[in-house]
């Protein structure tokens, strides 16, 4: 049956990933200096979130670097990211090769080279941290963030930083921490640290007005 094969892709990836993932070793100690008092942080966090929530659409350019232990040099990719409130996020990678990822609701559609894969995040929660961290932040949806992560806030409205740690054990087996830095309602930097030591760093920039 055709549909039997559907979803195998991610399964193949995950069961292998989970099996191969080394036990978390030598985690980077969280930067204690940036942590502010929780109470002060909550007010600031809410201010940032409500500012973010006011944006209904967004379009940014990104450059992403991935540091994989299997490769001797980082992988670089770039493209643009589009956001439509409340829950649609599209990541269009243009270089080094075209690829589109669309997250709408709980469905992630990946398209490259004429093939598309549809993934239900409810079925593959392991992908969730990679996409929900960015989407929920863009939406200014604090409760959505807190459903998946332990959220720590640092800085000010002008220069803030969110540190997201997955709550779920299973999620922690792939993603250790996500850090998002921004200013006002702009995201500037997203760093995803994986449990196996690999990490990715995405730098975001609002394109110059045409």
């Amino acid at each position, binding site marked *: 049956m055709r549909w039997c*094969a559907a979803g195998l892709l991610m*399964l193949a990836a995950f069961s292998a990933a989970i099996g191969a993932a080394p036990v978390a070793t030598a985690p980077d100690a969280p930067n204690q200096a940036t942590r502010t008092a929780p109470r002060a942080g909550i007010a600031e966090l809410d201010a940032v979130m409500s500012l973010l929530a006011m944006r209904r659409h967004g379009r940014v350019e990104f450059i992403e670097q991935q540091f994989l232990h299997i490769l001797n040099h980082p992988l670089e990719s770039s493209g643009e990211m589009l956001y439509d409130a409340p829950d649609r996020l599209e990541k269009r990678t243009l270089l080094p090769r075209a690829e589109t990822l669309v997250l709408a609701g709980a469905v992630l559609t990946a398209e490259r080279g004429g093939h598309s*894969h549809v993934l*239900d995040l409810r079925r593959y929660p392991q*992908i969730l941290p990679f996409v929900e961290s960015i989407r929920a932040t863009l939406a200014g949806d604090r409760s959505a963030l807190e459903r998946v992560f332990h959220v720590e806030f640092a800085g000010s409205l002008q220069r803030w930083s969110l540190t997201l740690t997955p709550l779920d054990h299973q999620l922690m087996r792939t993603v250790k921490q996500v850090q998002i830095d921004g200013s006002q309602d702009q995201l500037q930097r997203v760093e995803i640290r994986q449990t196996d030591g690999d990490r990715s760093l995405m730098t975001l920039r609002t394109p110059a007005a045409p």
Partner: protein
Amino acid sequence: MNRRLGVPALWLLCVALASVIVMRAHYVTDLSAFLPAKPTPAQQLLVDQLRDGPASRLILIALEQGEPLTRARVSAALGARLRRDSQFSSVNNGEPVTEERDRQFLFLHRYLLSDDVTPARFAAPGLHAAIEDTIGGLASPEGLLLKSLLPNDPTGEMLHIIDQLQRTPAPATSDGVWVSLDGSRALAVAQTAAGGSDTDAQARAIEAIRAAFAAAVREYPTPAAAAVQLKMSGPGVFAVSARAKIERAAVRLSIASSILVVALLFAVYRSLPALALGLAPVASGAVIGIAAVALVFGTVHGITLGFGITLIGESVDYSIYFFVQSRPVALNKASPSWQRTWWPTIRLGMLTSVCGFASLLPSGFPGLAQLGVYSISGLVAAALVTRYVLPALLPSRFAIHDVTPLGTQVARLLNRSRQLRRWQLAAIGVVIAAAALSVLHQHVGSLWNRELAALSPVSAADQNYDATLRGDLGAADVRELVIVSGPTLDSVLESAERAAQVLGGLVGTRVIGGFDSPANYLPSAATQKARRTSLPGPAQLQESVRQATAGLGLDSERLQPFLRDVETARNAPLITAQDLQGTSLRAGFDALILHQRDRWNALLPLHAVAAAQALDTARVTAALQRAELSDAQVLDLKRESDALYAGYLTEAIRLSLAGVLAIIVLLLITLRSPLRVMRVLAPLLLAVLTVAAGLALCGVQLTILHLVGMLLIVAVGSNYALFFDRQANLHEAGGEALTLASLVIANASTVIGFGLLSFSQVPVLVALGTTVAPGAFLALLFAAVLSRA
């Protein structure tokens, strides 16, 4: 032997013999009644598909009501139970029960399964390109997770195989099981081990699902679980419910019409012996009719039995004529015997009907041919019993209640019309005929329904529900497919691979959107060998990997697992069909392979470019022919089955016209007067035209069953017209009241019997009822008014 006892004894012997044959006959209820007796190769494939093809074995299961989590739990419990049941070859509800095994199988055999495996890909430049591609794919969150496969599978064969297999998106999933797009129902698909044409096995499978569902619900003794409801759809479910529906309708309607007809006859006869004797010709006709079908065809189609009710309509008339018309004889020995005065007319009426039904005998539609044999033998038997057995059984000086007053009253009603002049009557006939013809002319384009679905007893609501479930499951009904056949499994896999090359080109030019092939699950031995020999030896591969990884930022040392896996694959045996066992791929493979007698067929279902767009099968055929794939055939299931039915319909129309011609010849020979023949036939043709026009005005499209109904109008009505013709010629005023009375009673019983059919839920029975009931009444009316000296 005493003649008075000899004839009934012979009759009893015949009926007893026929009863034995009826009891031992083989009854079939599958689709074969609609399938041609001598199929073309394409039709044979169609027949095989409809009967036992993979699509015919699917049962779609939906759990509705209750709340989502409970539905998911019930679905899981139901799935677990059904998977243990050997009646089902596969059960899928979205739970990843076989995914680990699937993954292992695909990963282990990736170098034999992937169509990317060629010698060039495993030389240094090919490896370089493949690894570069794989590394590029790591850049997405989804690809990032593939990185752990990289040391083993740097060329990305696993991903490629999955793309190869994954042609349609998976159904939505919630709480671990498949759900509809709107989340309102949990979904599952069960494939039965038995073929779809085995209606008994399908019924057992449906019962097993019901029982498993009930048990699954009991596992969660909460009100939420009790609220969950089970619904099923699919070809087998339809077949079972259609059979039950037809059986129910046939039984109920037979009982209802029997009661009504018996009540009517009792009201008329006021005599229990007459009533009992009057049913003897009907019962004998039915039993002998079925026995004749069993003897001629070997098997009896359920649908033939369904039509059995049609015979009651005419055969009961014979006994009515006998009792009513022989009354004066019984009372007055001096009057001429019924056998001498009335029998010749009834005999002619019967022969007319036989001519009509004989036209069905050469039909390529087995259902119609059986109906022809059944009607002819049944009518002849009923008439003979009326003629020879009833008089012998009748107690001496027996007479029924006098119905002359009824006849006199009818005669008075008719007298008004009889004051009209002959030319006035002719004018009325011409006006009615012209009006009917003009209505038919207006509807000429849409008069006949040429789709097989017109005969389907499945309601439109059920068909829509089925389509909804299929939409949710991404299991669109396969309409077009390429079929390749051969003497062995491996030979059809090879042919499928050759056809796939052609079809791949058609995907590129967007003639088709895509296709499935069993060779994706199990490549032919030749292909597997070719892929295996594409893999280089260890030393050579190590050197190629060293060159290939240069400049990619990947240390070739990291690819040691890859070298190991390739070496293992080089020495591994080829994959066989047995290796698929225990994986979900087995069901996918089995669905595309059909093994019948000494032939193997591989099915390659085609997908349209866009969902609503029709596929250009002519271009597919042309492309396959250009590639000289003579053993590959393109089959459009719907078009083929509609063409089949349209062929039956056209043939049946032609045959019926031939039947009418035969009736004309028969009447010309016996009546020896074209004018009398016209007088007999005009009311019947007028009745048929009027009914057809009436149906067209009501927006009913005529099917093959309406045509059978029209034949019945002619068969039943010919008796009426012949009686009136005889009356007009013999000028026997005294008999008129009796004739009229017997005709009115006979007509009432026919209208009751067929009128009841109109209330059934089964389209074929409704078609018969709505045609014959008004048609028989009109035939009597027209015959009474138009036939006169």
